[in-house]
């Protein structure tokens, strides 16, 4: 149930945006991926689900190569699902939330199975199953993000990728979604790649933290080590910039 990036490179046109990135998301753990915009975090996530083709290296899901094939169906079988940043563009406004979730259910379930599975998933993310018929327009941002999470879980993923899933949410809602993420991981034993630019959020959910800069992983280790005893200069810079101050005073200042 693990996700392994082996020296993965990706390019947009002539620009290489990922340089031989190697990263492992071990079974049942949450790996936090931090870095600034343009560092390649999201691109790495998108290679794992086949939205961005890799130009070198390979991605293994449970030891089986995935992602390089461009056929849409192959990714479904690979068991990697993704939750996106913007809950306002990740749900089809023309579809009821129940339909959106049902679409992602693996296999060919009967109508009755689909309805009960949608109800189960909505209940899992603490939404009233009776709302399955509603359109996303009548839901708040936090509720939409729950639906997006339920849709990702519908594919019975072994690995879940969460790309900045709380950065578009209000503070009070962010807490609830983070609690839900931790709860899902504990109950379902999901492996998760949790991408965020917010170090405090990553610290709260992740077991290990990988720091990305300019298309490379510059530091990766247990969350407490990376965030309290960073070894790479870039990690120190990031930590020093956290508003409210880092847990430990850092000598290096940013300019």
């Amino acid at each position, binding site marked *: 149930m693990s996700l392994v990036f082996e020296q993965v490179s990706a390019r947009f046109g002539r620009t290489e945006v990922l340089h031989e990135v190697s990263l492992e998301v071990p079974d049942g753990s949450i790996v936090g991926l931090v870095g600034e915009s343009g560092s390649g975090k999201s691109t790495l996530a998108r290679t794992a689900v086949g939205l961005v083709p890799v130009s070198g290296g390979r991605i293994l899901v449970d030891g089986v190569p995935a992602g390089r094939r461009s056929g849409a169906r192959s990714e479904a079988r690979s068991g990697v699902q*993704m939750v996106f940043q913007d809950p306002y563009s990740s749900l089809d406004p023309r579809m009821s939330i129940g339909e959106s979730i049902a679409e992602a259910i693996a296999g060919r379930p009967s109508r009755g199975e689909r309805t009960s599975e949608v109800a189960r998933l909505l209940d899992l993310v603490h939404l009233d199953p009776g709302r399955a018929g509603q359109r996303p327009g009548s839901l708040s941002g936090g509720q939409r993000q729950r639906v997006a999470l339920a849709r990702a879980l519908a594919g019975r993923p072994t690995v879940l990728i969460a790309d900045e899933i709380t950065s578009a949410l209000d503070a009070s809602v962010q807490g609830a979604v983070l609690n839900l993420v931790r709860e899902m991981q504990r109950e379902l034993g999901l492996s998760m790649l949790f991408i965020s630019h917010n170090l405090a959020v990553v610290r709260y959910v992740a077991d290990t933290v990988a720091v990305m800069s300019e298309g490379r992983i510059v530091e990766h280790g247990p969350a407490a080590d990376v965030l309290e005893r960073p070894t790479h200069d870039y990690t120190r810079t990031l930590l020093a910039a956290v508003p409210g101050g880092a847990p430990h005073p850092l000598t290096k200042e940013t300019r």
Partner: protein
Amino acid sequence: MRALRTPVGAVGATLLGLVLLVAVLAPLILGDRATAVDTDDLLAGPSAEHWFGTDNLGRDLFLRTVVATRLSITLALAATGIAVLAGLLLGSLPWLLGPRLGRPVTALVNILVAFPGLLLVLCLATVFGVGARGAVLAIGFAGAPTFARLCQTLIAGVGSRDYVAAARIAGVGRVRILLRHVLPNIGEPLIVNATIAAGGALLAFAGLSFLGLGVQAPAYDWGRLMQDGLAGIYVHPLAALAPGIAVVIAGLAFNLTGEAIAGALGVTPAVGPRAWSVPVRTAAPEMPAPAEETVLDVRDLAVSFPGPSAPATPVRGVSFSLRAGESVGIVGESGSGKSLTALAIAQLVEEPGHVAGGVTFCGTHLQDGGDHDDLLGTSMAVVFQDPMTSLNPAMRVGPQLAEVSRFHQGLGRREALARAVDRLRAVRLRDPERAAHAYPFELSGGMRQRAMIGMGLMGTPRLIIADEPTTALDVTVQKQVLALLATVRREHGTAILLISHDVSVIGEVCDRVLVMYAGRIVEEVAAADLRDGARHPYTRALVAAVPSMTTPLDEPLATIPGQPVDPAAVPPGCAYAARCPLATDQCLTEEPVLVDGVACWRAGEPLPSELEKEARV
């Protein structure tokens, strides 16, 4: 249906309904009389019996024009149908085929669009052969490239949305995604354009028939009738003009309806309860003379917007003041009214928004109806969240900054530009000369935000209002921008009003924090006390909900149950009561006012979660 309420929509829909009704009924009722030959009355002028006269077989031209409606409309609609279908097919091919195979299709569509439409119609009409069927095909296929281009653009827009990506990850095939996700979401603009195109097709058809390439006798449409009438245009002008008028009316009907639908689709209808009336004060309240060093004094500020049945007031009775060099933060969730408060202070609330209450800036009452542009332009600076949209993308950064000084300080072009470069240096942009010559898109997000602050520094601002200035920026850049604001404040004694949803950002920069909920200030607290000394249950919940670098990892984060209040349906009593664990009957009925820095009946009482935590320790 909202489209019908506009004058354009009402006229268009009525016309269209009339035209369609005639198209259906006329041939049934008048069909026989319109083909009745009367050899006694050939080529007659208008008379009481034949309103538009008769043709060379003595047939009544008025009746023929009316009866021709059905064929004209049917043919136009058929041609439009072909154009839309062919366009849709051609337009969705690039998406279905993927980027590599799709490129030649896109190129083909580009070439076809560049080809003159009329030429294409005439060319195709001769290819498909003279007659109604050939003309339908010709006009339909000639219209296809335009629709193909439209569909391509619309599909590309929807195709880049995350829900399409999610469907792809879920393993849904491209054809299925196209049918389920893409087409339903491009339907509206497509229908609007099809309606307008139907008007065009009608005209094109009349043209082809007029040239003899369209409908052939004994069948007749408006174009055919025009051609027949042309011979006698100087004797009986009405014979040729009447079908022309019919074309104009039907064409207008289609176009106006399409326009009205397009206009209506741009707006989402507002729904929800509106059971709340606003006391909108028009007269400015009595303004107590502000203290000497007060830069900004806001008294009883309210902003309201008209709603379907009653106005909504997202900002209600906000009062506070800023001293010179002071830094005050406003924190709150989306919809709390914090940004609107900032806009109201900067006099940027646009119609139909209504601002009530008093704003005194540097001793000048801003709502006395006078022109305060120079004061606002030089002494107040506003920095918004997204510097990409607040800078003019088509103008270089330097001249854009220089404009401020040229307008408000009367500097010449060269002097103003020199000052702009100097100000860009002041906000510590590396290589300010080059930045001044750059377009906004050539700068990074952090550099753009610095340039925006630099624009504020073109004058000598007494106040900088920064509305989520760092939300779109990375943490390291955020730190730099916040440090820059602090420097400006220190060096120029500028007061800063910082609006943010991020409690930790506010804590970093501000002396005082105003917490807003449902359009009111519910607590005013020193920034240092925000984390431990806040008394309002909402403030405490908001602070606890945000993980910091010291949050204990073994406990769930605090959450605030329920939903924020809809500004159009603010309940009586405390707006937070429904979500508050401390709420009593009093909270539900009586609205607490801001006393001693907090607006809460049960301020400072321990929350259940806090008691729990204490019990555990």
